[in-house]
């Protein structure tokens, strides 16, 4: 019997499928861009799509681009009275139909943090919301977690499908595809998907059951523990190796802080939003010149505190971390956030 919800996608059909879908949507998939680097990029024919390793960058740029124009402005002088000028503002929210293909469950869980902050609740960000609404997510379940993974410690799972529209489980020769939402069901109508054999469905179940759980961090009551642990000395020691770059925050699927800058050029210019990093000195630098977080100890305390205390307190227990482990791998000094959390929970 052919199930309407569970189908099979052969490995070799993926490029054809992505090519076809890219006619009606912008399709983002993990693409090998150098010997060692994989990033989510707009799919183009001939791109080397890679599913068997974690992308170096998370796909958050799909809904939250690193640079985004809020508005552009042009001044015009009044020819009758040159002391007067008018300003014209242009603003548009861009949200093309988008397919995010091959995001891991930890990547999708990272996007849930954006939902909590930008698209739900009292204040909504129009452009992030528009892009989120326009995006269909195909998640690739994770069958080979890395040594740096800890999604199961922060409420996730390598086989979680929450937040995705369609889930793919790797099996011999391809993927078993399961629709999670109506959007996912619509996608399954593409001819690249063929009926899944019983054998394949069973293999997918076996594969999912065999995924090893990653080491569990002692995060019980971490919100309260971190509030109590405000000792600068502790954070000075923890952050001593940190070089205050933004690598950890930019590779983080859940970090959403941004900056707004006016970029003037002649009689006009633009106001842009760009990713920002709480590890930078300028992040909290105030116009007066005062900086409430002048050293890396305060900044590192904030990064950990935000992810594991303030965010969960404000957003119903959701951690600002999906356990993908990219911050550990990308850190120039191999600072391990898991180790810091362990130290924090046993300190004092």
């Amino acid at each position: 019997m052919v199930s309407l919800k569970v189908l099979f996608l052969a490995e070799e059909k993926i490029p054809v499928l992505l090519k076809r879908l890219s006619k009606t949507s912008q399709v983002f998939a993990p693409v090998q861009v150098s010997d060692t680097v994989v990033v989510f990029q707009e799919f183009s024919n001939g791109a080397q799509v890679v599913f068997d390793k974690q992308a170096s960058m998370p796909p958050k740029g799909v809904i939250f681009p690193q640079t985004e124009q809020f508005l552009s402005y042009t001044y015009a002088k009044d020819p009758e009275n040159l002391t007067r000028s008018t300003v014209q503002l242009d603003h548009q929210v861009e949200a093309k139909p988008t397919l995010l293909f091959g995001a891991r469950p930890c990547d999708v869980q990272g996007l849930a943090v954006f939902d909590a902050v930008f698209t739900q609740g009292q204040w909504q960000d129009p452009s992030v919301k528009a892009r989120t609404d326009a995006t269909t997510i195909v998640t690739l379940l994770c069958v080979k977690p890395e040594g740096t993974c800890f999604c199961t410690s922060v409420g996730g799972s390598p086989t979680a499908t929450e937040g995705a529209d369609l889930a793919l489980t790797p099996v011999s020769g391809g993927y078993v595809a399961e629709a999670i939402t109506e959007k996912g069901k619509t996608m399954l109508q593409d001819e690249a998907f063929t009926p899944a054999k019983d054998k394949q469905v069973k293999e997918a179940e076996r594969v999912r059951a065999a995924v090893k759980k990653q080491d569990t961090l002692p995060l019980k009551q971490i919100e309260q523990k971190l509030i109590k642990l405000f000792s600068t000395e502790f954070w000075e020691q923890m952050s001593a190796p940190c070089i205050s770059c933004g690598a950890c925050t930019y590779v983080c699927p859940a970090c959403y802080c941004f900056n707004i800058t006016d970029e003037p050029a002649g009689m006009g210019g633009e106001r842009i939003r760009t990713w920002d990093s709480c590890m930078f000195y300028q992040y909290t630098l105030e116009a007066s010149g005062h900086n409430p977080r002048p050293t890396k100890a305060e900044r590192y305390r904030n990064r950990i505190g935000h992810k594991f205390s303030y965010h969960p307190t404000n957003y119903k227990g959701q951690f600002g971390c999906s356990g993908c482990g990219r911050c550990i791998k990308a850190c120039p000094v191999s600072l391990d956030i898991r180790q810091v959390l362990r130290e924090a929970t046993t300190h004092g």
Partner: protein
Amino acid sequence: MDHVARSVKEQAVAVLANIKEAITRELEGLAFVIGWEEGYDPLHAAPFFVRSLADIERLIWNPLCVHNLTSYLPKLKGRKVGIICKGCDSRSIVQLLQEGLIKREELVIIGIPCRGVVDMARIKARVDCSQITDVSFTEKAIAIKTPDGRQEIPLDEVLATKCLSCQYPTPLVYDHLAGAAFSAQRPAAALYAEVEEIEKLDLKERLAHWEKELDRCIRCYACRNACPLCVCQDQCAAESRNPHWFSQRTGVNEKVMWQIMHALHLAGRCTDCGECERACPMDIPIQRIRRKLNKEIKELFEYEAGINPEDTPPLYTFKVEEPTIKEKEW
């Protein structure tokens, strides 16, 4: 284990023992000593701040000790600290001393004569590093164990480029030397091979090459912050809003511009330690841009940065007649 391998291992053990002994003697008068410990997996070392005698046992020394720890020093000015450094790292200390950015009397330097450290990007390109269970070394090879099996790679294939042409294996400045000094074992000529490949391209091709490589830059400034000589850091022109030198956009033009600015600020100061490229989370070969400028500085001024604390960087000074620039003959 064969005789040679054992002797290499014994040497490393002896070096580490010497380091520990030196720290044990010096620690009392110091805020801390910066060295390396094992990182999050057996393939990664991490900088480690030794604050107590008990910490000393966590120190390691092997070709995974890639970090140039001297990058921490300018921000520690005013405190007396200890630092463990390789030959190449010691050149950063010399350069920082030249520029008055650190004080010699605030430093206890434990030098290590070094036979080379790995380039992690080269290992990542050959080994699936997602689960590392063990790493070990022989005289000529690194052996990496993963759940898929054991892979042995000749060290020369994964050492950093700077190591394959290293001229200063023994630190140029130190208080304690943790092993027997030795002189350069590698041909210097190899250093510029990658740069010369790029020089062969015409200007259009060169721009295309760098646009392709730099397009994946994420402007995280890991290259800047890992650099021992990038001492503006918190006041960097790349982030300054007043004056607004630099667009905050993240298009390829801004990325290229950022890298050019970084490299030019290092002209005549860069000691080719490679921290910029090593720190890059996107594995962009940006050291080549600095190395190209080092090559120019060498040709123009017959100068190499970070060799003699009494030198003045050529672009920090002015001579009416540069001995190597025959202006009057133009």
